[in-house]
């Protein structure tokens, strides 16, 4: 492997960009393919498929064998609202491999005592997300019930193509939310992406049960195309 290529690969990974390392297994030569690069022929098709499925593997193309190693950033979960549900959800999501941050400007909620060992920011989402904006590999979970806190990160998540966007609230609450976001110029297609009421329908009652329903729905959005989990 070319040392310069290794540096470029690591730089892309640090910048949370999806990247495929293409290695020609016949002669050992390698190169990087970014998601919007165009590569001709069967190899190009295989690279596109690798990005789409996130699956690494070897392919035969142009009479040679190539190895495609897909590097996808680790998923993040941004939880808006340091509420009871979040106290259960944050450690569960971390266990499942999510890089978790909890945000709430209400300092009574966002106390270190309530969120020991969790990346907690007691600030408005606009400010708390400056150093790590929501991206396509982020799940956004908005659970404050307060439009002043929830709406901005919801819009930001929809605009940046976050793979999961969930918002707590009854159908009535959500209907009002939809009206507000429409007024902010959010498209109907984007509004339809919001999981609301939040979480898989498992009859969850306690905060911890609701956390399980939310986490399962986020994992489903990450691992399969249909975020409703088929149900």
């Amino acid at each position, binding site marked *: *492997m070319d*040392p310069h290529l290794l*540096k470029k690969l690591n730089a892309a990974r640090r910048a949370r960009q999806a990247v495929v390392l293409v*290695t020609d*297994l016949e002669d050992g030569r390698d190169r990087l393919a970014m998601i919007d690069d165009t590569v001709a022929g069967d190899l190009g098709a295989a690279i596109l498929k690798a990005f789409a499925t996130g*699956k*690494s593997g070897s392919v035969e193309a142009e009479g040679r064998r190539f190895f495609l190693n*897909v590097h*996808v950033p680790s998923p993040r979960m941004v939880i808006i609202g340091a509420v009871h549900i979040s106290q259960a959800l944050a450690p569960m999501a971390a266990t499942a491999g999510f890089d978790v941050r909890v945000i709430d400007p209400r300092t009574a909620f966002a106390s270190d005592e309530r969120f020991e060992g969790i990346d907690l920011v007691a600030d408005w989402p606009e400010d708390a997300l400056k150093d790590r904006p929501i991206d396509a590999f982020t799940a956004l979970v908005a659970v404050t019930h307060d439009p002043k806190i929830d709406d901005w990160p919801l819009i930001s998540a929809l605009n940046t193509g976050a793979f999961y966007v969930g918002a707590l609230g009854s159908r009535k609450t959500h209907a009002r939310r939809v009206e507000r976001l429409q007024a902010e110029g959010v498209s109907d297609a984007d509004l339809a992406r919001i999981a609301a009421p939040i979480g898989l329908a498992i009859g969850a009652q306690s905060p911890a049960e609701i956390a399980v329903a939310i986490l399962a729905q986020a994992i489903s959005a990450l691992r399969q195309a249909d975020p409703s989990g088929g149900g």
Partner: protein
Amino acid sequence: MTQTSAEMPTDPLMIAERWMLDGREVALATVISTWGSAPRPVGSHLVIDETGNFEGSVSGGCVEGAVISEAADVIATGKPKMLEFGVADETAWRVGLSCGGKIEVYLERVG
């Protein structure tokens, strides 16, 4: 899928880059294919230096020893190698892919 956690201190590709900058000779092993139950997914890395220090894994610890001993040769010659381990292979059975799977590991020099 290789879920990148570039921030993790144990990330093999970050270690490979660091070792290289430190002037160490580095070989990189990658799981290319797996059959049956294999402990580490395709795309997993093991990084090895010229004195046999290593980080990462290509199996659950069963074949790492064999890969590390091949690495010295790959570092010396610069020629990549494809290594196969599996139940059908007497050597591999001895080094113990106990899960009964089969894996193909590509070993190359960095630089």
